[in-house]
């Protein structure tokens, strides 16, 4: 599903963010990307949905090297990748329903389909009751659920979550991780970057550890530390 081959990324100021990364993530896997801030976790995710382009190497998503993707094709790549953000990136002046519907609207889906799919997504994340609330009326956990609903409303085969629990308390964090696991069980490949040691240790899933732009550990049924 996802393959990084000899991927390096350095910014114009000469800082190397990723160095010779090789990684394979199979279909429907559930992977934690761990490591300290600045290790390159976010950049690695951005490479996958072509928010960034690698300096060298191949980034293969669903058999396509997205590093060389024509910019006109990028929107269609992104419709196949759901992204969940630490800061939710919800549109403040729109209701939860509208925020989730947004992701379908841009694909030009008919209104009846949008309504049905948004309701399904909201039900899956347990937000059906808050469909008409605005983001500033929601708690952090609810905002993250809305964000997840938006990410999965297109039924993408891949879900990327960049520090999804970064702003949440431990209990809510657990709820969110369990929600992501539930989505994984619905045949979605899930990549989660996180600092949250407790969750990674308890989940006992595949762990890829980054440090200063290199993969220092790739372990099935791993923990946060060795």
């Amino acid at each position, binding site marked *: 599903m996802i393959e990084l081959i000899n991927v390096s990324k350095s910014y114009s100021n000469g800082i190397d963010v990723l160095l010779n990364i090789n990684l394979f993530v199979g279909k429907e896997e559930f992977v934690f990307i761990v490591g300290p801030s600045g290790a390159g976790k976010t950049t690695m995710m951005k490479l996958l949905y072509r928010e960034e382009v690698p300096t060298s190497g191949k980034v293969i998503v669903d058999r396509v090297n997205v590093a060389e993707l024509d910019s006109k094709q990028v929107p269609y790549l992104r419709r196949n990748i759901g992204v969940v953000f630490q800061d939710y990136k919800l549109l403040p002046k729109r209701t939860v329903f509208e925020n989730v519907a947004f992701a379908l609207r841009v*694909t030009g889906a*008919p209104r009846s389909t949008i309504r049905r799919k948004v309701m399904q997504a909201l039900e899956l994340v347990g937000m059906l009751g808050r469909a008409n609330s605005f983001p500033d009326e929601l708690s952090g956990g609810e905002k993250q659920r809305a964000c997840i609903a938006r990410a999965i409303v297109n039924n993408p085969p891949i879900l990327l979550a960049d520090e999804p629990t970064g702003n949440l308390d431990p209990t809510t964090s657990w709820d969110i991780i369990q929600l992501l696991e539930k989505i994984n069980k619905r045949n979605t490949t899930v990549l989660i970057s996180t600092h949250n040691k407790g969750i990674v240790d308890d989940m006992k899933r595949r762990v890829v550890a980054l440090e200063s732009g290199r993969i220092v550990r790739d372990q099935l049924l791993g923990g946060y530390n060795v």
Partner: protein
Amino acid sequence: MFSNLEFFLVEALRSFRRSALMSFVAIGTITVSLFVFGVFLLLVVNLGSIVGSVSSKMDLAAYVNKDISLEEAGALQLTLAKIPGVEKIDFISRTEAWRQFKDEFGSQLDLDATMTNNPLPHTFNIKVRTPDILPKVAKEVSNFQLIDEVRYSGKFVDQMKSLLDAIRIGGASLVILIALATLLIVVNTIRLTVLARETDISIMKLVGATDIFVKWPFIIEGILLGVLGGLASFIILNFSYSAVLYKVSSALPFLPLMGDQRLLSLIYLTMVLLGTGLGMLGAYISVSRILNSEV
């Protein structure tokens, strides 16, 4: 597509409301520019119609300074009428001309006392089809032996025409300058609304919106600005021109101002379409520049 159109319209209106002040400034600028454009168009059209009507009054006057009989005059009139381009010929005999002159000025001067005989020549007033053939016809008329002199006000027509050309060229440059200024203002207005919605745009792109999808609401917003500006300038110009027409027709009735409703509608339609085009183009340039500078 229908649901998209609805989405675009709602987005455009939302953005329009959000930056209401800037939108009104932009509409105002478009209104003023289009108003100037419309005034210029009306000026050219009216000068054209004045020149046209003056030219159409341009007759040739051919003078015969000999005593000729009415038969001779009649025969000459028939021959002259065969010259191509001649539309109408009136013969005014010297006696008739003298009578008219005395009718007009006899009360102020004791003409019979100062003048012992009639100093006026016979006159053929020749009307030609279009002013541009005046010189040609004049030359042919003067070739006749009986004709002593041919007169027409060709110079005046030429001067009016060059004035009209100058106004056309000057006005066209003015209109282009104003259009560019308007375009810049629309570009900036839309730029502000695009910048205000940068988060929205980045999220739209993250969830897989194509560039053209992101652009549409802004282009519609630009069209909206243009249409409203165009309509406002149309209304203002329509009122002002009607007032001018009314004033002029009572104060200077001999001035043939253009009042043709079809031509007027065409001018107004041009203004509104031009406004729409400017708004659309401005928005397109603006949003394209921002989208391209991102990513």
